[in-house]
Each structure stands twice: as structure tokens, then as C-alpha cells.
């Protein structure tokens, strides 16, 4: 394949990767986006006010949507997270291949910086029963995906028209509990939330989530928490299945988190951006996303380590969804399935270092590493490390240790959840 980033003269793959991990770039984007808070929320409100008399958006999906590839139009709007796809010379090689094959031009927008505010951006059009201007969006499993499915804001897919998905999708990507039969969603990439730490700063190598509270393992005032993922991760480590958890279990997790917050080791809670503090050595360890830590370990040579704590890690899946009334659903489904070809999925994984929904990619990357041995030993080694990293290619044992998080599906649940966990950090 000729799509490797380092084929470009004067282009350091390490540098490119530095800009690549999608989660690290989220913080600044969010902050910068803060300036537009007023405008955004105002438009939502206006729509909310105006929307009461319009159709309440229950019209999306259904069988009326035409998925016949013959009727696909020649362009497609795909919204994704920053630097979450292969890129070379300002173009997206995998999307170029898709165009060669189908004639469909994909307008790729890396406009999603976090689920909440992106969802807020779509909300007015979704509520008004209008086209959002996007044919594919990528949203992490959780209440926004649930809301899109429940409110008919996600287009129901024609499950007979995705042969590559049927043939190649990983077990965890097939029929997740929040979308049985993948009727509305197909995984783009996925990852784990566990514990990341700087091996040079910790006093002792941690093995379980409880260690975050102990100065035996972490220096005082040096441990970070991912506020949104923490409840699920904590429940998993308390031996609770977060997917079916209820108020009593939430209270248990909240008590654990309050204890961590009040412990000597605690430094701060994060929405994202903990990586900046890890790099600045303000943190010795933190609840962390696998892709962030792996990137720094493999591509930047930092002394970081990511562990699945003793009782398990949190699995999350970023889902491709076709919003209601999308202009080109046939083209969208074609593209979603296109990325389930191992060679195409490989192009993405070699760039983004998150979990690929196509397990075959592992062997392809290993083979690619061997091919590069002669020409670029360093790159070959990095590819080999990528291919051999257990966290990217979860086996049954690892999958037994991870769980998806709680799916909030009613207003009462959502309210109770936030009332339980938000006050821990809102102090």
C-alpha cells in the first residue's frame, strides 16, 4: 500500500501521530468552542421554542428509506472526530479508494469534538424532523445514541446490504446490547477506559482501580479522573455489571468516587485533556483512554503504561449512524460497509491506534511491518508493536474483563444518574 504517511518527504510520522490521537485534541477544541456556546445554545432554544408545533421527529428510519446502491447520489457528508481516519498529503486515501470504486465523493468533516456538544448541534434539526445535512455521524454509545434510536432520529439500516460487515465484524462490534442486530449503528472504532500512568512517576506499579487512592502507588495530588467514564469503570471494578445497574449500585460507585476525590492522591477530574496534564507531569496516573496512552507509548516513546485494572475496563464503541432524512442513505450504507473490508480497515487502524472492528487487520498490520523491515526498521518496529498490542486486539480473555457502560434510556434515569454522579465533581 502506498498510503503510509512517511512516504511524504519531510513528514515525520511521529509528529503526525502526535496530532492524531482523537481524544487529546478534544480538550482544546472544546475550550475554543466555548466562544460559540451562546450561539449554539441559542439556536437550540429557538428551535426548541419553534419546534412544538412541528412533527416531533418520529418520522426518520422505517422501511421507506431507499438503500439501493443504484440510487445512491454522487456525494456523501461524513462527520467524524478530528484525526480519526487515515490521511496523507491532505487527502484521505481510504475515501479516495471508495470514490474510485463507487464514484461517490465523501465530504469528510472532522467536526465532532465531544459527543454532548455535537449532539446539541444536531438537536434542533432532529427535533424539527429535518435533514441534519450529514449522511453519517460518529457518536459514542450512551444516552445520545439511545435518544437517536428511541426518537426515530437514526435511520434504520437495510441489514441485507452489508456483506463485509457480516463477514468481518468483530464479535464485540456485532449486535451490541444498545442496538441488537445493528439495526441502526455500525462501529467505526472502539477503545477501552482503564488506568494509564507514567512508570517514572509512580511509586509502585498499580494493578487495580483501588490503587488510585493509595500513596503507596501514586504520589500525593497526582491522580486524575475521567468524569464521564468513571461511574461505569468504577462499577465494573466493584464487581457490578454497569449495563444493568440501578440507583443502589450507582450510589456505591459514587461513594467510591467521593472517597477517591477526598484521598491524598487525587489531583483533578477531567472531561478530557488529562493527557496534557500527564505530559506536563502534573499527573502521575489517571483513568485514561487506551488509544491516547498507546500512541504516546508506541509512537512517542514516553514511559507510559496502560492497564486493565484487576476487575476490568470499560469498553466504548464509536458508532456510525445515518441521521433521519439524510440525503444519501444508500451511499452512506455503502461507505459504512466499505470500511469493513480488512485492507481498508487496516489503513484506518495504522493511523488511529484504536480498536478496529475488523480483527483480521491485526495480521495485515503484522505483515505490513515485515514488509517495511528492509526499508524503514523504526516504522517496521512500530507496526509490529501495534500488531502485537493486546489492547488493540482483544482476545476472549480480555473481552471477558471489559464491559460496555450503562445505557441511559429515560429522562428519569438520566436525571437520577446525573444527580448521583455530578455533585461529586461540582464542588
Amino acid at each position: 500500500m502506498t498510503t503510509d504517511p512517511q512516504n511524504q518527504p519531510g513528514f515525520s510520522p511521529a509528529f503526525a501521530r502526535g496530532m492524531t490521537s482523537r481524544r487529546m485534541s478534544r480538550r482544546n477544541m472544546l475550550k475554543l468552542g466555548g466562544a460559540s456556546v451562546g450561539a449554539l445554545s441559542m439556536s437550540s432554544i429557538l428551535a426548541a421554542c419553534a419546534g412544538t408545533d412541528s412533527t416531533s421527529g418520529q418520522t426518520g428510519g422505517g422501511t421507506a428509506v431507499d438503500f439501493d446502491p443504484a440510487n445512491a447520489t454522487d456525494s456523501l457528508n461524513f462527520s467524524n472526530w478530528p484525526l480519526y481516519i487515515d490521511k496523507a498529503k491532505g487527502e484521505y486515501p481510504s475515501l479516495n479508494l471508495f470514490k474510485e470504486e463507487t464514484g461517490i465523493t465523501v465530504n469528510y468533516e472532522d467536526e465532532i469534538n465531544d459527543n454532548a456538544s455535537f449532539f446539541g448541534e444536531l438537536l434542533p434539526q432532529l427535533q424539527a424532523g429535518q435533514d441534519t445535512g450529514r449522511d453519517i455521524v460518529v457518536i459514542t454509545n450512551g444516552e445520545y445514541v439511545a435518544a437517536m434510536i428511541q426518537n426515530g432520529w437514526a435511520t434504520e439500516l437495510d441489514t441485507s446490504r452489508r456483506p463485509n460487515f457480516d463477514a468481518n465484524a468483530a464479535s464485540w462490534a456485532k449486535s451490541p446490547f444498545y442496538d441488537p442486530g445493528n439495526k441502526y449503528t455500525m462501529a467505526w472504532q472502539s477503545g477501552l477506559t482503564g488506568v494509564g500512568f507514567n512508570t517514572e512517576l509512580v511509586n509502585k506499579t498499580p494493578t487495580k482501580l483501588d490503587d488510585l487512592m493509595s500513596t503507596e502507588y501514586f504520589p500525593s495530588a497526582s491522580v486524575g479522573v475521567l468524569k464521564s467514564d468513571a461511574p461505569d469503570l468504577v462499577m465494573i471494578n466493584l464487581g457490578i455489571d454497569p449495563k444493568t445497574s440501578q440507583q443502589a449500585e450507582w450510589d456505591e460507585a459514587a461513594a467510591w468516587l467521593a472517597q477517591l476525590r477526598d484521598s491524598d492522591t487525587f489531583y483533578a477530574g477531567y472531561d478530557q485533556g488529562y493527557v496534557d496534564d500527564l505530559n506536563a507531569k502534573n499527573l502521575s496516573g489517571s483513568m485514561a483512554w487506551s488509544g491516547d496512552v498507546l500512541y504516546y507509548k508506541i509512537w512517542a516513546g514516553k514511559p507510559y503504561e496502560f492497564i486493565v485494572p484487576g476487575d476490568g475496563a470499560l469498553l466504548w464503541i464509536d458508532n456510525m449512524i445515518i441521521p433521519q432524512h439524510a440525503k444519501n442513505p444508500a451511499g452512506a450504507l455503502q461507505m459504512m460497509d466499505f470500511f469493513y473490508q480488512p485492507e481498508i480497515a487496516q489503513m484506518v487502524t495504522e493511523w488511529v491506534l484504536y480498536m478496529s472492528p475488523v480483527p483480521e487487520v491485526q495480521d495485515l498490520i503484522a505483515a505490513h511491518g515485515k514488509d517495511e523491515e528492509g526499508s524503514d526498521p523504526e516504522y517496521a518496529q512500530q507496526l509490529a508493536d501495534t500488531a502485537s498490542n493486546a489492547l488493540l486486539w482483544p482476545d476472549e480473555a480480555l473481552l471477558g474483563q471489559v464491559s460496555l457502560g450503562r445505557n441511559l434510556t429515560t429522562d428519569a434515569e438520566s436525571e437520577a444518574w446525573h444527580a448521583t454522579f455530578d455533585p461529586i465533581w461540582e464542588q
Partner: protein
Amino acid sequence: MGQTAAGAPGLIPEGMDLPPARKGERALARRRRTAAYGMLAPGGVYLFLGFVVPLIIIVYTSLTSGGLFTSGGQLTFTWEWSNYQKALSEYGPFYVRSIQYAAIATVLCIGLAYPMAYWIAFYGGRWKSTLFMMILVPFFVSFVIRTVQWNFILGTNGLLLGPLKSAGLVPEDFHVLRTPMAVIAGITYNYMPFAALPLYVALERIDRRLVEAAKDLYASKATAFRKVVLPLSVPGIFAAVILTFVPATGDYVNASVLGGTGTTMIGQIIQDFFLVKHQYSIAAALSVILMAGMLVIALIYARALGTEDSTLAAGAAT
């Protein structure tokens, strides 16, 4: 501050005083009157669309109810006063904290900006404009970027604490980032130009002869400052406090970039409700309370320090 309005030739009254014979002049006066409306219109429309309309929408939204799952996020107007009850009962302490932080930062801003503005105004000479520009230079960098940079300055091993720690002057586990100290420092830094600007304008306008006169009457330097300069700069202080305190109270950037658990300000809570929880009704109620609270504080403050008095003081300077 008020001297231009009082001293400049008024547009309309001037025309009214003219003898009736001078018809051309009267037509001119009429034109001037329309011109006044014409000139007010763009700003008025702008203010109406940009402030009055959103204000009405916010108040309206604060009395609605609805949820993402039950009503697809559609809000219905139900006179939902409980939004206010919830906002106040659950988030009251955050208003108090925000006001505390903003008050401390305002005092610091004025404490830091006053001597600076004073020196530039009185001793800046031909460098006045240049020096004053230097205070404003940070404005050429984005607010957020400036604040993010403070992460490096205040980091546990950053520019400030790194050397202090290696010198053994502060304990190894001491940190500033993610504490109230960092948030207040950030707010102070970011809003100081807003304090410096009106202070400088007020100080710059003070008639030097009044200070000389005070000295001629055997006032010491300190007394002259206390009895002449300080009272004459009150309008500047008044404006500086308003311009710093009000936006600082609602600020959420400093607290979210520099703060941590235990430094949450009301601006963050509101932002969270709007952008993360998508509970617009509560968010709107929180905003209305903040706005009303600020208005009340500003009115009390204006009564105490008095805009009218300040204007008179400013007038006396001319």
C-alpha cells in the same frame, strides 16, 4: 465621564432656540433630529436582536419543561417555576463562590492596575500611548489560548513552581493548578486590562493644576493624592469594578482550564446544563438568576458609589 454629554452642543435643543425667521435652520434642525434617530437605529436594532430577544427567549425557556427521551427534547411552556427552585437549592453555593472569586479578582485587578494606570497617566510623558498599548497587547491573543498558557506557568513542575521546588522553597507536593488560587490568578490576569482602561481614562483626564493647587496649599504628596486624585478617579474605579466584576462572575473559561474539583463556578454549571446535559430549562433558569443577581448587585453598588456623584466628580475636574 459625563462631561462630553453635558458640555457638547446638543443636537436638538440648539435648533429649538433659533428665531422662527430662519426657516432653513429649522429644517436643518428637523433633519438633525431624524439623523439622531437614524444614528441610534442600527445600534438599537442590534441591541434589540442581540439582547432583548435572547433575553425574552431565555426567560421563556426557563419556565418550560421537557426531556430528551419523553418529548424528544421538545420543551413546552408550563410555567415551570420549579426550575428556579431546583437551580437555587442545588446550585446556590456556586453563585456564592463565583461572587467570592470575582470579588477577590476585582480587588486584585484594581490594586494592580491602579498604580500602573496612575504612573502611565502622570509620568508616561510621550510614551503614554505606547505604555498603555502594552497593557492591551495580551488582547491580541485569544482569551482561551492565554488562559491555557497559564497551565504551563502554574504546572506542578512548571515555570513558577519548578525552580521553587528545586530550590527547596516550597514542598514537593505543593500545587497551584486546579486550586482556587489558580482560578483567581487567571481571572485577575484576564480581566486586568478591563480595569486598567477606565482607570487610565479617569486619571489621565485629571487636571494637573488641581494637584499643584493642593500642593500650594501645603498638602503633602500623599494628602494631595488622597484628597484630589483619588476622589477624581472614582468614576474610573466605578467603571473598572463593573467591567471586571460582572463578567468575572459569569466566567467559566478560567475555572474550567485552570481549576479543578472544588473550584466550579456558576458559569461552568450553566455551560454544563446547556451543552452537556441539554437541559435548557434549568440552564436558562440558572442564567436568569445570575443575570438578576448581577443586576441587583450592580444597582446597590451604583447607589453606594453613585454614578451621579461620580459624574459630578468628573465634571469638577473639567
